[in-house]
């Protein structure tokens, strides 16, 4: 008899069992839906956390203030040497005029300051280089490099008035700590929730198959081979996974749509609905593949227990 006929028969019994054991199928699907929802939730919250951390990192920089007498070429020397550092992600140059314009913009509601500024004949502000590091932990190394430049007496170094890293050091250190802790905590929570929900889903399927243990015994007795016994239960497990994945993916649409504006307010720029829409193909693949793998593997292991020689 061909393998194809066997596969067709196993698949048919899998579908029939799934439909006829409606109540058991429903319970398994409900539990797996919760598991897959937790999984999708973990993916989304991980993305939200990462987006927030990236955003926070972007807000941190070190400013190099130059003396008002610094020439453009001195500033460009420092800019080039900074850009050559592997730790540096971006260096932005603001000329004296830019710095003045930014100052005016920042204090536009502070008439007293603006008046004081107007009374000065000359622009009191020096040019500024804003340095952004690849990691927040690297700012100290950059600040030390600038100190060395200043101390070396090189033309560019001599033009540096001050570097604001040391004023910001506590905030930067704290942020680095928060980022590290959030990442570690996020991984630990994801791991814990992931394992717990997988175990619950596995146990539910095991219970579903426990109710069919006599049936498995009868199949053994009439001489069915292992795959003929196991196959329909594995098909059932796959169907639990597919049904749960479809429910989760459908539920995520209204859920993320509802949560979208709130998430944007809370995280800054991260909108869960946009994330759901933009990453739907990969979300679909991961949720569906996890559901199928969880269902099939749980069934495989659960049936193994009742298969005799």
């Amino acid at each position, binding site marked *: *008899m061909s393998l194809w*006929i066997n596969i067709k*028969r196993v698949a048919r019994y899998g579908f*029939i*069992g799934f439909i*006829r*054991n409606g109540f058991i199928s429903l319970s398994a699907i409900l539990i797996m839906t919760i598991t897959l929802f937790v999984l999708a939730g973990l993916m989304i919250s991980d993305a939200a956390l990462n987006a927030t951390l990236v955003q926070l990192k972007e807000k941190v920089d070190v400013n190099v203030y130059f003396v008002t007498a610094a020439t453009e070429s001195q500033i460009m020397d420092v800019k080039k040497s900074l850009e050559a550092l592997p730790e540096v992600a971006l260096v932005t140059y603001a000329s004296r005029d830019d710095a003045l314009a930014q100052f005016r913009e920042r204090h536009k509601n502070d008439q007293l300051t603006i008046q004081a500024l107007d009374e000065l004949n000359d622009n009191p502000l020096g040019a500024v280089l804003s340095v952004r590091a690849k990691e927040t932990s690297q700012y100290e190394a950059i600040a030390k490099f600038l100190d060395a430049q200043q101390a070396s007496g090189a033309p560019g170094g001599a033009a540096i008035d001050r570097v604001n890293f040391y004023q910001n050091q506590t905030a930067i250190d704290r942020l680095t700590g928060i980022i590290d802790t959030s990442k570690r905590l996020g991984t630990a929570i994801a791991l814990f929730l992931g394992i717990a929900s997988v175990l619950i889903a596995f146990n539910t399927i095991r219970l579903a198959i426990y109710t069919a243990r*006599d*049936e498995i*015994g*009868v*199949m*053994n*007795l*009439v*001489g*069915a*081979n292992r795959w*003929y016994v196991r196959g329909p239960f594995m098909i059932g497990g796959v169907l639990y996974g597919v049904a749960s994945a479809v429910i989760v993916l459908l539920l995520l649409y209204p859920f993320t749509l509802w949560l979208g504006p709130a998430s944007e307010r809370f995280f800054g720029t991260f909108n869960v609905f946009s994330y759901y829409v933009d990453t739907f193909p990969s979300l679909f693949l991961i949720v569906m593949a996890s559901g199928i793998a969880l269902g099939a593997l749980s069934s495989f292991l659960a049936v193994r227990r009742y298969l*005799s*020689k």
Partner: protein
Amino acid sequence: MIYYDKVTKIYGGGEHAVEDITLGIEAGEFVSLVGHSGAGKTTLLKLLFAEVLPTEGAVYFGSRDIGGLSNGELLRLRRNIGTIFQDFRLLPTKTVYENIAFALEVAGKSDEDIRADVPHVLDLVGLPDKMWSFPGHLSGGEQQRVAIARAIVNQPEVLIADEPTGNLDPINTHDVVEILKKINDLGTTVILATHNKSVVDSIKRRVVTMDQGRVVRDDKSGKYVI
């Protein structure tokens, strides 16, 4: 055809279920195994389809030692031994048709053969109109007849019946025994374990009596005597 060679079976708790049994059964025989509950009848039958293996001795089917069979050989052996039990052991989520078809499918029969054989065997056990019922919707007697149909549909050489009438009323008991006799007349070896005296006396064939795990009596044309 079947030979128990000095077979002893001791279960995990140290309980001797059968002890030093030597017994031969010829092809085409109808053997009734009788004895009190716990005499070892069921264990003797389980040894034949290798649901349990002997602690000592060997069980032969033809010339093959059942204990030494590979997985594949064991599956083929089981397809060649039909089994029926007191609790019917039907697949509850499958229809009568599917229950019987399942035994044919695992034996590798084609869909055409299955479509022809299932109605035929249901005719034989008197249930042609219950093909699409589920076991839960049938009476005990009807369920046992479905179990018999499943057991014989592959035309096995041996049919093992372990207390098949234990849950049945006298009329259904009579019907089941008549079906077993008919199957035996068609050439299948039947081994019936029972403690129903009237059943054994009505068959009037070989009776093997067991007590405390041993064969204490073997009458070629016997009656129920304990």
